[in-house]
């Protein structure tokens, strides 16, 4: 199973099938970036982007676990991402570069551009013989005040994420969500109830620190969040201080306190020592009531590090791309919509989409990941 994806031309638009399930004879067409069973591959430059198997040369969009996997011989990423990869994947051959700086790989020009998703997250621009492709990685268009904001990059072909690629996903301005979180914390405090905020340890946890610090002097953090904070501080990032939860902290101090914990901690016995507590989940999925209830949360805050529907469309239009491939998320809805609106688009299946915002159905990965973090940091 070398090439997983086969291009088949139907009359209206180009559809991609996974060869595994299609009965047609695979026919290989060389694209600047191919969709292989190891990930996105540039044959000409001989490198992979966010591969999910070990490869010779990998370019990494950002440090989330579904995009940055171990085992490859060489990694190229933004220099903000480098210490995070080191923390997460251990020692290895990492090279960090600036945004907008062009690197030559076998005659292919490669450069990184801010994606606005989390610290260091980059879009990868690939240019060969005048043809430009951009791989978005994960991105959001709203400026969160921490991450370098998203910059649209002109290209011929845009490979976009589509985690929240349905029009039901429309984010409120982050300040409004922060106010809701603050109100919720205040209400809990008044009732002597602890507030456990569930936020992914890399990205969301840092984002909510500022608004939370405005309503509380002490912020407690689960080990995974504290470890990530430590890794970022070691790399000279500066955030409001958190206090690591240790068994030594007396229960009386925790009464009515604020705790930031990763999704893997939600619902575990670890939470017992904060009782009575209320759980608030910060995730784009909380936009839908059913998800708040399913996760058994007391409150859901639809705060996301991914673009909402309008954000995706704005970003796609801004690239001026004549062809769009949609990956992880609602790729079929997004690509159909684009096709109907004059932008040629197709969906591709990838193995991304197990990080916090995307992996609602996959808590096991999150669990593994936080365990992993415990050991590595």
């Amino acid at each position, binding site marked *: 199973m070398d090439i997983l994806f086969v291009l088949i031309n139907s009359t209206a638009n180009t559809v991609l099938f996974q060869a595994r399930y299609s009965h047609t004879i695979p026919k290989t067409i060389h694209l600047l970036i191919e969709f292989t069973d190891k990930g996105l591959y540039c044959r000409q430059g001989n490198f992979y982007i966010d591969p999910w198997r070990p490869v010779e040369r990998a370019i990494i969009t950002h440090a989330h676990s579904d995009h940055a996997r171990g085992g490859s011989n060489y990694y190229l990423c933004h220099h903000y991402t480098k210490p995070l990869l080191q923390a997460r994947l251990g020692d290895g051959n990492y090279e960090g570069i600036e945004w907008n700086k062009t690197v030559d790989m076998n005659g292919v020009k490669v450069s990184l551009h801010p994606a606005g998703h989390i610290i260091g997250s980059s879009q990868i621009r690939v240019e060969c013989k005048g043809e430009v492709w951009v791989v978005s990685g994960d991105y959001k268009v709203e400026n969160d005040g921490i991450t370098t904001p998203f910059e649209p990059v002109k290209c011929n072909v845009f490979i976009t994420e589509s985690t929240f690629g349905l029009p*039901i996903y*429309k984010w409120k301005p982050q300040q409004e969500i922060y106010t809701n979180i603050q109100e919720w914390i205040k209400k809990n405090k008044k009732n002597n109830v602890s507030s456990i905020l569930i936020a992914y340890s890399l990205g969301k946890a840092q984002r909510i620190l500022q608004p939370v610090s405005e309503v509380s002097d002490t912020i407690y953090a689960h080990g995974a969040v504290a470890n990530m904070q430590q890794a970022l501080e070691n790399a000279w990032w500066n955030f409001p201080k958190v206090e690591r939860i240790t068994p030594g902290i007396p229960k009386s101090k925790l009464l009515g306190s604020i705790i930031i914990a990763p999704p893997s901690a939600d619902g575990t016995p670890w939470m017992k020592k904060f009782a009575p507590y209320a759980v608030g989940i910060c995730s784009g999925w909380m936009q*839908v009531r059913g998800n708040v209830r399913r996760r058994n949360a*007391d409150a859901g805050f639809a705060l996301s590090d991914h673009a909402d529907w309008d954000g995706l469309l704005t970003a796609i239009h801004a690239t001026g791309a004549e062809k769009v491939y949609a990956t992880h998320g609602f790729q079929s809805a997004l690509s159909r919509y684009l096709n109907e609106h004059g932008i040629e688009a197709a969906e591709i299946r990838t193995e991304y989409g197990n990080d916090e915002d995307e992996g609602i*159905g996959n808590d096991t990965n999150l669990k593994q990941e936080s365990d992993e973090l415990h050991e590595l940091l």
Partner: protein
Amino acid sequence: MKKEEDYKELIEEEHQLDAATDELPSPAPGTGGLAAFAQLVQVLGTSTKTLDKLAALSNYFTVAEDKDKVWVIAIFSGRRPRRAVNVSLLQSWCIELAGIPAWLFAECYHTVGDLAETIALLLPELDETKHKNVSLSYYLEELIRLEKQDELVKKQFIIDAWQTMSQSERFVFNKFITGSFRIGVSQKMMVNALAKTIELDASVIAHRISGNWDPSTTTFNELLSEHATAVDFSKPYPFYLAYAHEGDLSVLGKPEDWQAEWKWDGIRGQMIKRNNELFIWSRGEELMTEKFPEYQVLKDKLPEGVVLDGEIIPAKDGKPLPFALLQTRIGRKNITKKQLQEAPIAFFAYDLLEYNGEDWRNKELGQRRATLEKIVKSVNHPTLLLSDVIEYTTWDELAKIRESSRDVGAEGLMLKNKYSVYKVGRKVGDWWKWKIEPLTIDAVMIYAQKGAGRRSNIYTDYTFAVKDGDNLVPFTKAYSGLTDKEFNAVDAFVKRNSLEKFGPVRTVKPELVFEIAFEGIAASNRHKSGVALRFPRILRWRKDKPVSEINTLEDLRKMLEMYGKS
């Protein structure tokens, strides 16, 4: 028929009721109207703690206008007004306003799992300068008037209304039109919240709000003042519900203090004769008199002012028939002669709640039972039977008798304390149901579909198959029974191993084996397998079993032979 109590026991509720709402948060100034109701629904929908829900309800009943309160009581007890606007119209107006294609709306609906919510999420954002907060009763009464109007008038009204509402207000408003609020508020919880705010006992409130009343013509005072006057002869009593018993019976005390009966598999109901009329109510508070015309002969035979509690069961010669037969009758508007013949109905009476027009619920079970027996004897008609009391002397003996439940068409035993009074709702202590172990079968999952509402983004609805030679034959769907963790793991498997897509259904590589439990089995020519199961649910995930070892169609047929014939 949905028998909720079989799936979830709301035990926590029980212990927390009395402690709740001593200190109510005071309402913010200027609240009320639809906004306050939307806020209430938000809390009820997400709160994981009964105390919080109760507090939110009591708070609402303290601040809301009387007219709105009446409507909220009506809505939360299932008295939604008739649908004023057809949902496909509602959908098309939303599509128009949102400016999206219809297929994209469908995609969104499938992800959200709730039409009212989907529309609320898709409508263009509210222009804050147009925001109004009108009362709940205004909208509900307008909706009733709207029912007879033509399409354009309806459209104008709905669109105008949407444009004055926030997203959460739009959600509840849409809910008024599309369906009931399934947000984990039991009638009992609402009654308890009301009891905190008005000078009436919970049992009196529960009785007052049951039965036939119209929220648009009933005032709060008529409904719930101390001296309410309106007489509703059909009004049933709230049902007393049993908890499931597990384990050792000796914890109940002396066997002679307990009355044992079969636990019948039918529809729990009340038979009411008052004012020379006969009414039948189901436990779901549905007036079902018309569905069971054969009970009408009892009208002239029962004494005046009598309320019986019992089970509506298909039966022939005094012997119960499978529940599946009853299902052929309910849900139909008109019952044919053929159905009446094929599924004859009897009422298995087990309690007497009113006698000579007098509330007997506070008398001891022994006394109620004795009079009940006299009544049934004097009526002497095959449609009214006594639910027999089982003779036994020791707990061990009773345990043996329980094993034979399936032979008599019962699903286990009921144990009732002989000295107990008839309580309201589910109360621990005096009534226990002691069901037999379910039938089980090992099967493989072959189809999966995303859940609705609560679990709208993951694959939670599965179809299972048994082996038939080299083939797999689908035989049942089953929903509940897995933990959230397991659901997530199965969901991940489905996403990685789906073979084909038929609309929302994925065919899945047949690999995961589950033990399916069910209460009964009946022949069915509507199903490929030839059998239909009663209350199928996932008992556990058999990670230890390979597909080669699952049960066969032959095994199912044997079960049908043993338990499915009457």
